[in-house]
């Protein structure tokens, strides 16, 4: 079941949450809506679900499998919605929560008791909570509650599954575990799913496609690989992972910062000629303890952290400010750096975007 939204605008009083957003989710995909708070991602999800409605102007459309569902209220859209804070029915047991969507169906469409029981058992197995069917939500851990919420949403065999910050209220470890589990679950059941997150790592790890939102607009849409390696805007570049920003110039495909040419490959989209903001991720630097001709910034190691798969450094440069740098443990061993060491830093790769202002 594909989802298509066209020209959605949503205002709350004077605040514009979404500005003319259009988006297509291919059938069977798991899509992440990624953005900072206030970017409109949750509003978009709620509008797809029918929990909110778009502004009447401009004319908009929401299509499930090419069928317009704008007039349908939330109960008739056949969506499974998973809330950030679970929203489990607190006075019902796990089994009752899961069975709710089936029990409230009109008599003609309602499965029999035995069928409901089987369905609940099947879902409990899917969420790996067999044996806990008689617990109350308050007797479960956060991760367990979120899985029950997911099972409850899946029980009605939704056409699309919508998850609002599904792991937002969980601690880091459970989060990681649960998002891998969600990915495996999706591979198993293949229901078109959209989830909202502000965590770029989560989006890049779990989703088939990532939609990056900022200030009510879609900045970029693509596979995790595309948005990470070929960001189309400075915002996407900055939002997906840590970056070092230089204010410089681009001239004939070459980038210059403080008169020094960055010798590395300058990625698309090149800013044309003129003032530019040039982004380099921490892992895109080459370090050397000896001066090299031209392209390197000279600096001093201010901070060094070797605990982790990569060694993280902060290098205070003479002309380009404080840089965040990541190198492999092997390279660190080869260079033998310590706090206060003098190093030469050379960007291997960079992305340039036109400046909004001149320097």
């Amino acid at each position: 079941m594909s989802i298509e939204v066209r020209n959605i605008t949503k205002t709350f009083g004077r605040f514009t949450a979404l500005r003319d957003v259009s988006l297509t989710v291919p059938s069977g995909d798991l899509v992440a809506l990624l953005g900072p708070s206030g970017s409109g991602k949750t509003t978009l999800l709620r509008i797809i679900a029918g929990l909110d409605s778009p502004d009447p102007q401009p004319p908009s459309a929401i299509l499930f499998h090419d069928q317009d569902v704008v007039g349908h209220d939330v109960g008739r859209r056949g969506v499974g919605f998973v809330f950030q804070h679970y929203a489990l029915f607190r006075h019902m047991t796990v089994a009752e929560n899961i069975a709710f969507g089936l029990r409230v169906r009109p008599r003609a469409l309602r499965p029999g008791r035995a069928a409901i029981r089987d369905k609940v058992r099947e879902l409990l197995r899917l969420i790996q909570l067999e044996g806990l069917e008689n617990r109350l939500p308050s007797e479960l851990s956060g991760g367990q509650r979120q899985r029950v919420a997911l099972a409850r949403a899946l029980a009605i065999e939704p056409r699309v599954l919508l998850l609002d910050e599904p792991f937002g209220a969980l601690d880091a470890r459970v989060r990681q575990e649960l998002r891998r589990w969600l990915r495996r679950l999706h591979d198993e059941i293949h229901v078109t799913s959209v989830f909202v997150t502000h965590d770029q790592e989560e989006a890049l790890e779990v989703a088939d496609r990532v939609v990056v939102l900022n200030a009510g607009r879609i900045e970029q849409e693509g596979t995790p690989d595309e948005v990470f390696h070929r960001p189309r805007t400075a915002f996407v570049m900055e939002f997906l992972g840590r970056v070092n920003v230089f204010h410089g110039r681009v001239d004939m495909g070459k980038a210059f910062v403080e008169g020094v040419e960055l010798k590395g490959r300058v990625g698309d989209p090149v800013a044309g000629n003129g003032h530019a903001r040039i982004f380099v991720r921490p892992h895109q630097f080459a370090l050397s303890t000896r001066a090299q001709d031209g392209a390197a910034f000279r600096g001093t190691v201010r901070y060094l952290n070797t605990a982790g798969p990569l060694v993280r450094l902060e290098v205070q440069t003479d002309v380009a400010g404080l840089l965040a740098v990541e190198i492999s443990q092997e390279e660190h061993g080869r260079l033998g750096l310590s706090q206060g060491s003098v190093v030469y830093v050379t960007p291997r790769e960079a992305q340039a975007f036109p400046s909004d202002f001149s320097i």
Partner: protein
Amino acid sequence: MAGTVALRAMTAPQRRGRALAGSSPWTKGLLVALTLGFLGLVLLVPLAAIFTEALRKGVGACMEAIADPAALAAVKLTLLVAAIAVPANLVFGLAASWAVAKFNFVGKSVLTTLIDLPFAVSPVISGLIYVLVFGLQGWLGPWLQAHDLRVIFAVPGIVLATVFVTFPFVARELIPLMQEQGQEEEQAALSLGASGWRTFWHVTLPNVRWALLYGVILCNARAMGEFGAVSVVSGHIRGRTNTVPLHVEILYNEYNFVAAFSVASLLVLLALVTLVAKSLVEWQARRSASLAAPLAGRVLSA
């Protein structure tokens, strides 16, 4: 209101944590003694006096006073008034708190303030406004008389005054709880295909049941015990428009002390039953709240 606070989800460790760290046993002893002394003086002694006075001439005289036709008529009227006022305020309170807690609309703050009005206004004034509206010289007086309808100095007036005085109780209990619980569970139910009506019965109502019952108990106690507002609109017609509190006053003014205190002891018994019921509900609510504490704790700490 104390009830509103007590019904918030407080778990046992939270409550123990409230003990003032570092306060000396002397301070504690003094405070407890002061409180108990004060309670004894203004509450327990008068309470005991009511029963002592009622039984001064033996159980027989006491029973006789209660079995008096005028007294029985007063009891009947009081029960009738409560039987109308309490359900009316139950429905109104639910509707008002639902509206305030789950929707945004123009005039919401006005409505919230209006709900508190009966607490802010002296009961005598509450009675008087009905006399001004429905009385012979009131706005609707001539029209009512032309159609031979009696409101003031009759049962409808008593019911109206009681409804007015008691209408905050249910709403005041429910609004904070419903606000704290938010709308997500309802939205979840709707997204699963439940109708609005089913969502109300299966999700909203069970979530507030203890607060609702608590509000109803307080509302009932006040409906049966209300004096001031009812006194203004009743006309004190013995056997017809006298409620129990008014009947007590009449007997007392006639120097019929044994009868007055006997009937009064009925009200005291009602109060005691109310207190027991209230404690039971509070205990139940706290039990279900502490079960739900990890859920509610999130809201409280947020």
